[in-house]
């Protein structure tokens, strides 16, 4: 009897991490759908030039401001450019900029956060006060000011959006480090003579990683909103390059006169993408959270 129970527990314990992942992922249909959707989005973005029905920057004087039809599925804008093609091409920028900036912020933020959290002391104090200063500005307003100052190339937009995100990762990783470094295994790692950098990055960092990755996915939604907002007020991607926020802005003045499709569809694209990022973030949280693991 006891052996059987023992064996059962043993079997549950040895279920590989991936098997456990797969099982829980398949159970939550909504996150699964979101994961698929994000995959689809990435594929669309990569294959964009191949799958656009018409040239996104080709004006067509014969088809100006046409309603959605079979020839132009989402209508055309005031230059006669095909909306659907423009939205598809724009998905490249709209995924790339949030992705790269989030990655950059994640790397810088977690590196500094890890060092601050582990070392503490005066360095920590100085960095945290600087972070407080950055956090005093609302993210979007800070992004506005920075882009206005350094100009709005794609590289600059990535940098600006990254800067607005860094404090979040930095604080989070610092808090995690403060907790992890007092753990038994951290002391054990020190006792057997690991150098500090090894303890921090090989032993402690992987344990902070799950929360970071969740934070990053959720932050990508925000990054996209920031990018779209900046482009909307004319600071982000400049025409004729297409970007969803910029497309909404182009359609804005025509909206009040009844040309609804110009702003509606890029807006829906933003909305859906942010929603997908959020769902993936929630899904990842459920997957990676140790409290729900094994359920």
């Amino acid at each position, binding site marked *: 009897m006891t052996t059987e129970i023992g064996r059962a527990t043993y079997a549950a314990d040895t279920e590989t991490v991936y098997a456990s992942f797969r099982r829980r992922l398949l159970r939550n249909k909504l996150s699964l759908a979101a994961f698929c959707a994000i995959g689809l989005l990435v594929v669309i973005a990569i294959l964009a030039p191949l799958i656009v029905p018409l040239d996104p920057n080709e004006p067509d004087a014969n088809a100006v401001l046409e309603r959605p039809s079979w020839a132009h599925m989402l209508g055309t804008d005031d230059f006669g450019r095909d909306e659907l093609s423009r939205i598809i091409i724009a998905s490249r920028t709209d995924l790339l900029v949030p992705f790269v900036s989030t990655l950059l912020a994640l790397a810088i933020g977690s590196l500094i956060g890890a060092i601050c959290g582990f070392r503490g002391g005066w360095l920590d104090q100085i960095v945290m006060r600087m972070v407080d200063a950055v956090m*005093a*500005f*609302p*993210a*979007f*307003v*800070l992004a*506005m*000011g920075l882009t*206005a*100052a350094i100009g709005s190339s794609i590289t600059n937009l990535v940098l600006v959006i990254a800067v607005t995100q860094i404090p979040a990762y930095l604080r989070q990783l610092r808090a995690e480090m403060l907790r992890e470094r007092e753990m038994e295994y951290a002391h054990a790692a020190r006792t057997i003579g690991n150098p500090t950098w090894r303890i921090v990055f090989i032993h402690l960092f992987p344990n902070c990683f799950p929360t970071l990755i969740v934070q990053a996915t959720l932050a990508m939604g925000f990054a996209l*909103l920031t990018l*779209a*907002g900046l482009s*909307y*007020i*004319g*600071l982000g991607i400049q025409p004729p390059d297409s970007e969803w*926020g910029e497309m*909404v*802005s182009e*359609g*804005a003045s025509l*909206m*009040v*006169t*009844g040309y*609804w499709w110009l*702003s*509606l569809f890029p*807006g829906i694209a*933003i*909305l859906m993408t*942010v929603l997908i990022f959020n769902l993936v973030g929630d899904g990842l949280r459920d997957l990676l959270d140790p409290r729900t693991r094994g359920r």
Partner: protein
Amino acid sequence: MPSFWTGLILIYVFFYLFGIAPAPLGRLDPGISPPVPITGLYTVDALVSGNWHAFESSLAHLALPSLTLAISVMAPLARMVRAGMLEILETDYVKTAWAFGLPRRLVIYGDALGNAIIPAVTALGVVFGFLMAGNAVVESVFGWPGIGNYAVKSLTMKDSGPIQSYVLLVALMCILVNLLVDLAYSLADPRIRIG
């Protein structure tokens, strides 16, 4: 949800389709002269000076922009209160309240909501920052001559002075609001003492 987009959709639906909202061109209908400036708030001024026309018009012009901004922050707040509520409903004191046979309305809105709302109060500081940012965009969508619109216009004209002061002013206001939120804490949660 991007607030500039929500604003546009609201304009399209309520102004263009239904025609119940006024044109998104500022704070008053063009035909109405602004009320005597007392506080600078059109609604209050119109009310004080008994100018009903101006009052109605300014209220109508307020409706869509405020709705837009409200929608943009509604979702995160709702989520937060929901999460808080789920937690609170499991606590002992709520169970006790049920056990006493208190009516559902009283348990949920009286006992539970008061505590579930605390995280949302914390978030108000962040929400305010979010609103200030959204405000810049919403003002330019609705053609309000506000500070956000001013900043956006300076941005397009590459005029750095107004932008610097705008960014600093907003940051200052956010810090003040956060301070107020922290102080308001003690009202929402009697366990917290400020001292």
